């Protein structure tokens, strides 16, 4: 029964949590998130208010965590942020078009396929999974956008997030962004 024991033992974990960050890092992360999402919210209220468009979606909050809080992570690099969101939104919209939003299969496939494609394109970005879900579950306002969803809010939004990441992170002596573009 060694196999069962090994299986259970894996659940105990083998390593330790990486170190926490100093207060400065906490502050900068928070400030970055505030600026990135704040700018998107401002743009939304000034540019798209009154139209059928939206600019701020929930998955951007997750991207903000990575771009302003885990600056060095491969998951937070522009290639991943832009690619991950674009691919996942395409998958999400396509899933709705093919299967409709009413079945359990649609969100499951949207997230599953997004994951595969993000891996395959080396654009893994966890918030992409949320973006795929939003395409499915985002309600009528999102669904009537169709493939426009990929451009606005997703394409426009990630550009703003990455741009703020470039401008803000590089202002700080201790930070640099990105680690790589491509």
């Amino acid at each position, binding site marked *: 029964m060694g196999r069962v024991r090994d299986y259970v033992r894996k659940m105990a974990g*083998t*390593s*330790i*949590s*990486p*170190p926490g*960050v*100093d207060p400065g*890092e906490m502050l900068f*992360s928070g400030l970055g998130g505030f600026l990135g999402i704040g700018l998107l919210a401002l743009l939304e209220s000034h540019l798209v208010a009154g139209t059928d468009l939206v600019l701020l979606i929930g998955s951007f909050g997750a991207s903000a965590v990575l771009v302003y*809080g*885990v*600056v*060095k*992570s491969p*998951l937070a690099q522009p290639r991943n942020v832009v690619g991950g969101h674009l691919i996942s939104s395409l998958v999400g919209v396509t899933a709705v078009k093919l299967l409709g939003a009413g079945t359990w299969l649609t969100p499951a496939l949207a997230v599953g396929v997004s994951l595969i494609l993000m891996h395959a394109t080396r654009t893994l970005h966890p918030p992409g999974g949320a973006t795929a879900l939003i395409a499915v579950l985002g309600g009528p306002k999102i669904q009537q956008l169709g493939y426009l969803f990929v451009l606005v809010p997703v394409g426009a939004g990630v550009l703003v997030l990455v741009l703020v990441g470039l401008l803000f992170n590089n202002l700080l002596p*201790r*930070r640099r962004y990105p680690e790589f573009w491509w």
Partner: protein
Amino acid sequence: MNEETLTPAGGAGPPELGDEDIYEAMKEIPGYLDITPGSFREVYRLAYRLARKRLFAEQTAARLMTREVIAVRPETPVEEVAEAMGRAGISGVPVVDGENRVAGVISERDFLSRMGAREGNFMSLVALCLRTRGCVAVPIKEKRAGDLMSSPAVTVAPDTPLRDILHLLETRRINRVPVTDGQGRLMGIITRGDLLRTLGGALWAG
């Protein structure tokens, strides 16, 4: 021969890092690193092995060889060869012709086997001496290096990688191999001792 026994990278692991060491190092890098010390250690172990392997494989005959080689000519009388080897404390010399081309190698083993030692090593000669009355250099007296040498010599080119040299020494059961240029001219020699130093260095350097 299996690569694991050839490559120091195969046997010797990297200096062991504890999770605490990595944790402390990660603390010195500002910003959140989304990798666990455990994952880092795995990467480190593998990278270390690969680097070892690469450095090891990059060693070539030209970099490993001794350039000052004691060599003899085919017409050198064997007693002079033996004296030269004895003086230098070496167990073999290349035999070169007038143009410095390697014609063969003459080693202790060539002497011993020609003196009647069946296994070509010193103890079998001792055994022979003890069994027969008096001792036994007689069969090779008056001979010359060219008569005793092993020929053609096993040689390597200057760009032969360490891996191949080790393989050669092992499979041909020789203790030294002359390094020759494209025309077969002697450039240097690599002995087991040289390799021991190199490999020992590689082991401790990491």
